[in-house]
């Protein structure tokens, strides 16, 4: 009796209501459910079937290390995509930029043209150019971002294949402080952590600040929500979008270089298909494809949801090839949830 009234008081507190009504609440619940289900299934499986006890359980440090290794790479692309989609555009060329940037850096380095650091800078400059061209075509020529970035997807992928003749680039000969800065390894207890995770967390903090608290964030939201009204108020919608296209390309390039160093391979095909997985992560987190609504924290949850799903279903013993069925189901389920919530509460900040 008493405990139920206490629960009632808790659930009727304004802070609790706000927490439940937040667009990030649905994804958070889904992530927790995933973690609980996978932990339960892996531990039960190990106790029933002695063969499986040699595999690490879902919550083992080996597996968590594994998860946290992959999260920053797709996650960084997703952060850039979140900002761009909030402004009402999206970028299909992120996967190609991811592949091309690593190819450029390692080709320059392997050919003895530059040091690794200069190669890194060249790759980042080229990604800035890619983002600028995307943005320029979309805002000046008023071509839909779907078409512009589809073209850029092919150009960047084609360039990576042409430069390398389709062969992976050598990456293991590098001794450079850059390698440690981008993806150095260190241990925290039983966990092996790459510095890329720290960079990812830093980007999350900075971009969340920009989107929620800064003037630029207000412009980004308005550019996606109602560009005509924003322009009428003197908001430089075109310039805002160009900057976001550049951000998206730069984040992808950075993630691509990070990944190439970590796996010791710069493959001209790497990043293929990432664009759709990243867009899925972003919309699962509550960012609207049509713009005007976006959440960096939601995207972090979206990234975790899909990575945990991919990891978990393999550990539970579902064939990995079935992964896409689950992603598709999650996307549909979350979209249904978001649209219901939006209709009920009317969303805004």
């Amino acid at each position, binding site marked *: 009796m008493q405990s139920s009234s206490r629960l009632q008081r808790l659930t009727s507190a304004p802070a609790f209501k706000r927490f439940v009504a937040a667009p990030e609440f649905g994804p958070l619940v889904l992530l927790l459910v995933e973690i609980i289900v996978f932990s339960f299934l892996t531990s039960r499986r190990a106790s029933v079937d002695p063969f499986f006890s040699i595999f690490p359980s879902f919550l083992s440090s080996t597996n968590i290390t594994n998860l946290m290794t992959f999260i920053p790479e797709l996650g960084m692309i997703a952060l850039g995509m979140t900002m761009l989609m909030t402004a009402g555009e999206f970028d299909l060329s992120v996967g190609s930029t991811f592949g091309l940037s690593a190819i450029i850096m390692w080709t320059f380095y392997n050919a003895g043209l530059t040091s690794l650091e200069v190669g890194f800078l060249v790759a980042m400059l080229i990604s800035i150019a890619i983002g600028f061209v995307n943005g320029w075509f979309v805002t000046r020529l008023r071509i839909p971002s779907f078409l512009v970035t589809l073209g850029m997807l092919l150009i960047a992928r084609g360039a990576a294949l042409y430069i390398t003749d389709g062969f992976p680039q050598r990456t293991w000969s590098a001794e450079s402080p850059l390698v440690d800065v981008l993806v150095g390894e260190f241990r925290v207890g039983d966990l092996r952590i790459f510095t890329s995770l720290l960079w990812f967390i830093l980007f999350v903090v900075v971009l969340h600040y920009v989107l929620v608290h800064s003037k630029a964030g207000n412009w980004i939201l308005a550019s996606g*929500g*109602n560009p005509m009204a*924003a322009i009428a108020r003197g908001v430089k919608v075109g310039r805002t979008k160009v900057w976001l296209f550049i951000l998206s390309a730069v984040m992808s390039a950075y993630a691509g270089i990070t990944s190439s160093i970590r796996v010791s391979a710069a493959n001209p095909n790497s990043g293929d298909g990432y664009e759709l997985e990243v867009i899925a992560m972003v919309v699962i987190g509550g960012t609207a494809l049509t713009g005007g609504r976006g959440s960096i924290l939601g995207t972090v949850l979206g990234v975790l949801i899909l990575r945990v799903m991919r990891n978990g279903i393999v550990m539970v013993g579902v064939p990995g090839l079935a992964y896409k069925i689950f992603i598709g189901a999650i996307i549909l389920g979350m979209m249904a949830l978001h649209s219901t919530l939006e209709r009920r509460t009317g969303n805004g*900040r």
Partner: protein
Amino acid sequence: MANDLVRMEHINKNFGSVQALDDVTFTVGRQEIVGLVGDNGAGKSTLIKILSGAHPASSGQIYFDDKPVEIKNTWDAIQLGIETIYQDSALVPQLSITRNLFLGREPLTGPRYLQRMDKRFMDEQTRKLLGELGITKAINPDTPITSLSGGERQSISIARAMFFESRLIVLDEPTNNLGVEETHRVLKFIQSARDKGLSCIFITHNIYHVFQVVDRIVVLRRGKKVCEANPKQTNIDDIEKVITGIHDTLPEHRAG
């Protein structure tokens, strides 16, 4: 008249071979509400878009405060103090009232490079403004525009223009899609804006609404200004006949 706030002289506008405006001269006095009426395609919107910087004029000259000005884009118009409120699109529906009020003019706090919005100040001002609007029910400044009624949205757009000390508010069909009571409230609000020193251009094809509030009516037809009238000296039927082209001019006005 030398005392006009805005004078647009001999404005022409061509879209290819179509002449949208033909030698239109249009003025707005200080603290005056001008009703700009005409049928669809009469050139009302084109004239206003030239004034608000959305289109350049093909020829003609604009004076603001008796000084010749060039309005090349919306920002130029805003700098002069011309605030245009397009029908139903002046606000960003997903954003809160506060974020909409300060859109494009966000006050900052803290070090400049952080570009941090001064949310506390913004919320305070919004609350104050909402109180002045006379919206009876308590509205939280965080409320997104989507959960407001049409009249509340129009009032907030107009209040925003007043808050930022615009000199001229251009309202494009402000009473479209509004209920009777809400229309009334918006019309009253426009009058109170004038009493506080602003001028207004009120574009509409609902001349019944115009008649209640404006000081002067200007009728456009097929890109030409066909007449000007004082609503106190004419009646709705006569104006309607001019708009539709049954008459070319108003009949000699009746006594009164």
